């Protein structure tokens, strides 16, 4: 096993460097094929997103993969990498495994738990496979990374809480109404933000949409886009009682919805809850409206607080996720290591068996007058000697499995016993 990773990410390199090093998806196949055709490289994967560029390889045991990747990047970008060298991190062996697991699980992302990275890794993996650059250890590790990411998603709430303002509004609506099926949204004052929030609410199941705006034409336009109904601004209050969720973002200098009005709405609605998302500044909904039972008013700052709390929640979940990663890394390393060691053990046994068989053959003539019983004894004797000799090296190989020093040990054993040639 000889895994190497060279990369930059949003923490180590500014955006200018990241975009300079970026390898666009269209050129990925060609790039990865160039990479694995370099001498000594068996497998390779290139992960290039807006937050990271990482090149991972699995190479022949004695190969210095780092400088090969280095040269590859320099060639690919036609530049001297020296000026960027200090932005790069270099990882080897188990650190590569751990890093890939963390990246796939979105623990290394700018926004903890964001889901896109998994898709990006899948794409990078597919490109490598298509280029024939995935067929051994790295293939195993990346597959395992995808499985670990799924496990993290399943067993922690790392990606569950909303970390953007518009999704926070959807999340809050769900905390109030359960599902959003059949709920009516009223957009008061058409704006980019309210449009985005409405879009998220609709895709979460909300069905009816009403739009009102001071300029009626704009309301009609937006209502058409959402297959909703436009309401003239003068009739706003008449239709407000239909709405379960009101997204308000007018440019009005004063509040347009006050406590009295909402009290009336509530009695018209038989106290069914209402959720006001007030993203206007200055605010459209009088904050005292929130004091009413069954009414929830969130202004833009409140949504921000929810996002902050959710981010902290994700950080807490990340601790559980790291534990899972740690466990999975150990498991994978053990498996890879034994896989690494098994061929050596088999070769060693073969070698000694071969010597034994050859010697037995050579002494065939002189042992010819032995009885069958004596012959069996000689056979057992030589086999016993062989096993005793094997015992030390095999135990040593197995116990050191997964340690980086083991590579040296494997090499030493190959050399001493003349294996592999």
């Amino acid at each position, binding site marked *: 096993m000889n895994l190497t990773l060279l990369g930059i990410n949003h923490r180590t390199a500014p955006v200018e460097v990241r975009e300079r090093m970026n390898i666009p998806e269209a050129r990925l196949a060609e790039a990865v094929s160039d990479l694995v055709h370099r001498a000594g490289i068996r497998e390779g994967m290139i992960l290039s997103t807006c937050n990271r560029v990482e090149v991972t390889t699995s190479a022949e045991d004695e190969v210095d993969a780092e400088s090969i990747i280095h040269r590859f990047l320099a060639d690919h970008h036609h530049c001297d990498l020296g000026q960027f060298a200090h932005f790069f991190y270099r990882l080897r062996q188990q650190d590569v495994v751990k890093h890939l697991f963390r990246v796939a699980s979105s623990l290394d992302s700018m926004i903890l738990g964001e889901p896109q990275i998994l898709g990006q890794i899948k794409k990078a993996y597919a490109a490598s496979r298509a280029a024939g650059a995935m067929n051994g250890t790295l293939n195993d590790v990346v597959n395992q990374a995808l499985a670990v990411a799924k496990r993290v998603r399943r067993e922690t709430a790392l990606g569950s809480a909303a970390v953007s303002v518009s999704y926070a509004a959807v999340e809050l609506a769900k905390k*109030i109404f*359960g599902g959003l099926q059949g709920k009516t949204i009223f957009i008061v004052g058409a704006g980019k933000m309210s449009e985005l929030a409405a879009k998220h609410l609709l895709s979460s199941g909300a069905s009816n949409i009403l739009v009102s705006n001071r300029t009626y034409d704009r309301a009609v336009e937006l209502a058409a886009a959402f297959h909703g109904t436009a309401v003239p601004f003068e009739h706003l209050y008449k239709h407000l009682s239909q709405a379960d969720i009101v997204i308000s973002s007018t440019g009005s200098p004063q509040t347009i919805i006050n406590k009295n009005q909402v009290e009336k709405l509530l009695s018209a609605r038989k106290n069914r809850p209402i959720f006001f998302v007030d993203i206007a500044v200055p605010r459209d909904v009088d904050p005292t409206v929130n004091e009413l039972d069954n009414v929830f008013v969130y202004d833009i700052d409140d949504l921000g607080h929810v996002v902050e709390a959710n981010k902290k929640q994700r950080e807490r979940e990340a601790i559980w996720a790291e534990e899972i990663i740690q466990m999975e890394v150990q498991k994978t390393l053990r498996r890879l290591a034994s896989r690494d060691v098994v061929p050596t053990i088999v070769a060693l046994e073969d070698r000694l068996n071969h010597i034994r068989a050859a010697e037995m053959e050579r002494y065939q003539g002189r042992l010819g007058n032995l009885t069958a019983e004596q012959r069996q004894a000689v056979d057992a004797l030589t086999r016993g000697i062989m096993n005793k000799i094997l015992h030390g090296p095999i135990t040593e190989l197995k116990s050191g499995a997964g340690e980086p020093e083991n590579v040296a040990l494997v090499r030493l054993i190959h050399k001493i016993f003349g294996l592999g040639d």
Partner: protein
Amino acid sequence: MHDACVWTALAFYALGISLIVPSVVRRRPSLSPASLGALGIGLAAHAAALAIEAARLHRLPVTDVRSALSFYAFLVTLAFFFVYLRYRIVSLGLFMLPLVFLLTLISALHPASSFDSSAFRGGWLLVHISSIFLGYTALFLTFVAAIMYLIQERELKSKQPRGFYYRLPSLKVCEELYYRSLVLGLPFLSIGILTGFIWASRTWKGPWELDPKILASMVTWLIYLVLFSTRVSGGWRGRRAAYIAIFGFAAILVTFVGISLLSGEHGYIPKLREIP
């Protein structure tokens, strides 16, 4: 044998409850098979204990404090399973099951009474007792849903989500659970009280209407009636209704436990006058 079963149930309940804690803390989408398994074994052992007791007494084992508490705890656990399977609320167990543990523990520590009254075999009384118990079970659920509602509502009103925000179900689900259990509980309570009246008027001598437990249960019934009718007429839901539900369950506790311990016909040491 009975005691062994009760203690087994108690041990598995404790195990089950403690296994729920990590699932809640880690916000898992469902309870672990281990905790459900432990609670299931607890429930089975509990059922066995009740069956043994019923066989011994030849009737529903609810004739003294010990068996009544045990039976109620059993029903609450059963209700937990039903609600969990329907709603998958992971944190629900932590709201419902500590009571189960407590009641079972009190029941296990309480000495068995040797009291035996043939009056408890009457048909009316059987209906009375089982309806009341089913009603109390459903209304406990109403109480739990009201508490969960209030906590979640506070989280949402405060605009500073803390631990409960992530771990309790939506207001909608709390409200639904609350209303459904109320709709289920109120008829049972009504039947229970009505059959109680019939039975008392037939068997008791003297002014049975003034028995403190009967008065208390009338008050309880009125509270729930108000809760139900205001909800149906469309007025009250949310926080206000939740407060009344909690108040109603407090009234149940007074009726069920408080007055039973005081005195009277329902003291489980009945001073039954002449049985006709």
